């Protein structure tokens, strides 16, 4: 690729200072003439979605820095692009192909059959049962539970908001995990739920946030990609708390982002890449959950008090220990009984 040719310049020194493993990794490969190439295909959200596409790309960047691979990306314009995009990379015989998003599953099944020697990885989907596909899934409900706990304790109005992108089962995992967290610490709190039916319309995100705030919500969590930009803007203006998602979003509004629910797509991407590099690639599902720090919460801006952190950590430990199961669907949530810790 041409674009990448310029990038190693700034990236290389960073890699050497921060990660001593990087030069080692490259020296380990005896013929550096052909660096490994890994391709990532975004879903229709594309790069800049402030969500898993960005996060996955970030993970690959780290892989690039640490192991000197070349990363390439294809952005899908529509759902009909998934298969052709997979095929394009497969045809180039890159070392690993990521499909970012559960919507890739059917097309990945097909392409995995067509290119049995090609290694694939899919994010957010499992059960493909292909020998050459690694499945990276996350326990979003667990991470959301933790920020739910924080929200439930933080709220003064006992009204909390949730903004979802679209009513996918995946986003519902966020919703019900979050609600369960709130319910566990503050059964009286009401959670207002709105779906934007978009991952892009940030103006609408802002409008929804303002409405929820008007209705009393003083802490609002979102799982809506770019729509969340509107929530954070509203939080800034009106002075309430927003909770970020996927990555630490506190840099967007350090004063108003209470914390962020972390979904370490970057870690998932990194792990699988590493397995390819050191030859231990395995197909099948890898679950990233609270136990292995694949999900969690983060507070780079330092807005959480120690009490809040302690409470969240208490539940985190309980989840890790398997003391209780965090609901992921409506049915599970309805049956959910708050654990007594």
């Amino acid at each position, binding site marked *: 690729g041409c674009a990448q040719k310029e990038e190693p310049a700034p990236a290389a020194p960073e890699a050497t200072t921060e990660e001593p493993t990087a030069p080692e990794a490259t020296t380990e490969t005896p013929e550096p003439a052909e660096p490994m190439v890994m391709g990532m295909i975004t879903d229709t959200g594309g790069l800049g979605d402030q969500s898993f596409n960005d996060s996955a790309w970030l993970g690959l960047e780290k892989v690039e820095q640490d192991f000197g691979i070349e990363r390439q990306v294809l952005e899908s314009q529509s759902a009909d692009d998934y298969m052709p995009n997979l095929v394009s990379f497969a045809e180039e015989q890159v070392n690993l192909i990521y499909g970012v998003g559960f919507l890739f599953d059917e097309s990945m099944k097909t392409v995995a059959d067509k290119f049995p020697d090609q290694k694939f990885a899919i994010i957010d989907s499992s059960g493909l049962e292909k020998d050459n596909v690694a499945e990276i899934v996350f326990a979003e409900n667990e991470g959301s539970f933790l920020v739910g706990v924080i929200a439930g304790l933080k709220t003064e109005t006992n009204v909390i908001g949730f903004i979802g992108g679209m009513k996918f089962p995946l986003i519902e995992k966020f919703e019900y995990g979050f609600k369960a967290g709130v319910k566990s610490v503050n059964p009286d709190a009401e959670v207002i739920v709105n779906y934007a039916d978009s991952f892009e319309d940030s103006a609408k995100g802002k409008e929804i946030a303002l409405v929820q705030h008007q209705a009393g919500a003083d802490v609002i969590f979102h799982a809506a990609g770019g729509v969340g930009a*509107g929530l954070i803007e509203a939080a800034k203006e009106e002075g309430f708390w927003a909770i970020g998602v996927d990555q630490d979003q506190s840099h967007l509004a350090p004063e108003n982002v209470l914390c962020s629910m972390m979904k370490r797509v970057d870690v998932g991407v990194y792990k699988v890449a590493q397995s390819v590099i050191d030859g231990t690639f395995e197909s099948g599902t890898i679950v990233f959950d609270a136990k292995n720090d694949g999900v969690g919460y983060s507070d780079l801006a330092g807005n959480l008090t120690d009490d809040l952190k302690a409470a969240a950590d208490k539940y985190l430990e309980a989840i890790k220990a398997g003391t209780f199961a965090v609901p992921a669907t409506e049915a599970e949530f309805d049956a959910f009984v708050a654990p007594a810790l």
Partner: protein
Amino acid sequence: MIIFIALLASALRLATPLIFSALGGIFSERSGVVNIAIEGIMINGAFFAILVTKFTGNPWLGVLAAMIAGALTALLLAVLAIHLRGNQVVAGVAINLFATSITAFLLEMVWKRSGQTDAVEHALTGNPLTFLEKIPVLGELFAGLTPFVYLAFVAVAITYYVIYKTPFGLRVRAVGEHPRAADTVGINVYKIRYICVMISGVLAGISGASLSLGTVSLFREGMTSGKGFIAIAAMIFGKWHPIGAMLASLFFGFAEAVQIQASSLGINNIPSEFLQTLPYVATILVLSGFIGRAVAPKADGIPYEKGHR
């Protein structure tokens, strides 16, 4: 009451970009140029507003940049539609695609990433007339308004005055109805059309700025999400009349606000997807039921050729 005020504020904010763009559409189409490019002009306006605000730190310069960017984008349409007598719809479609691509491209070149820009520090998301917030009850309403909301209504008044009360407006309407008649009394049809299309660009540019600078203080790809087309619908709905277009925009804004507020209004058992369709279905019903025939300016979309009949 609180809910109603919130609903109203929400409707006003949501209607604002539509009002600007619909007014822009009116100028263009009243002079006889179909402007499908509104969406693209909005995108450019939204982008350049943020770009210039980023570098100057002054959001009003950002608004100015949006106006200039809008006017220049519209100039492209004008050249294509007026001088080159191109198919105005094709030109509009092309400009929309162009704007989407060029802003994403520049975003990548300037911010070195895709998707969205950083938030600018100074935006125009607050109520500029803070004294209004002291009014009991209604203060709440004003607190939620941005400068763009006020400007939108000023723009409606000015547009109305210009189109219906000034010689320029008379000429614009004549050019859109019967350009040859205007030509024969010494009116420069091309000049009028150029001016109108550029004005339409300025307005749609402000509309874009009202989305970026006025809502989220950053630019996101796809942030216009079809609002330019909705504005065109509002213009037609409003029968190419500034007041009508304003009412139509408010109607759209209101319908969307209702959809967003549905749960607080106690509408809980309707699937969200159906609520989303509310503004659109309402428009269809209104148009097919009560408004009936909306008649476009007669020469709308027809290139004028001097020396042809």
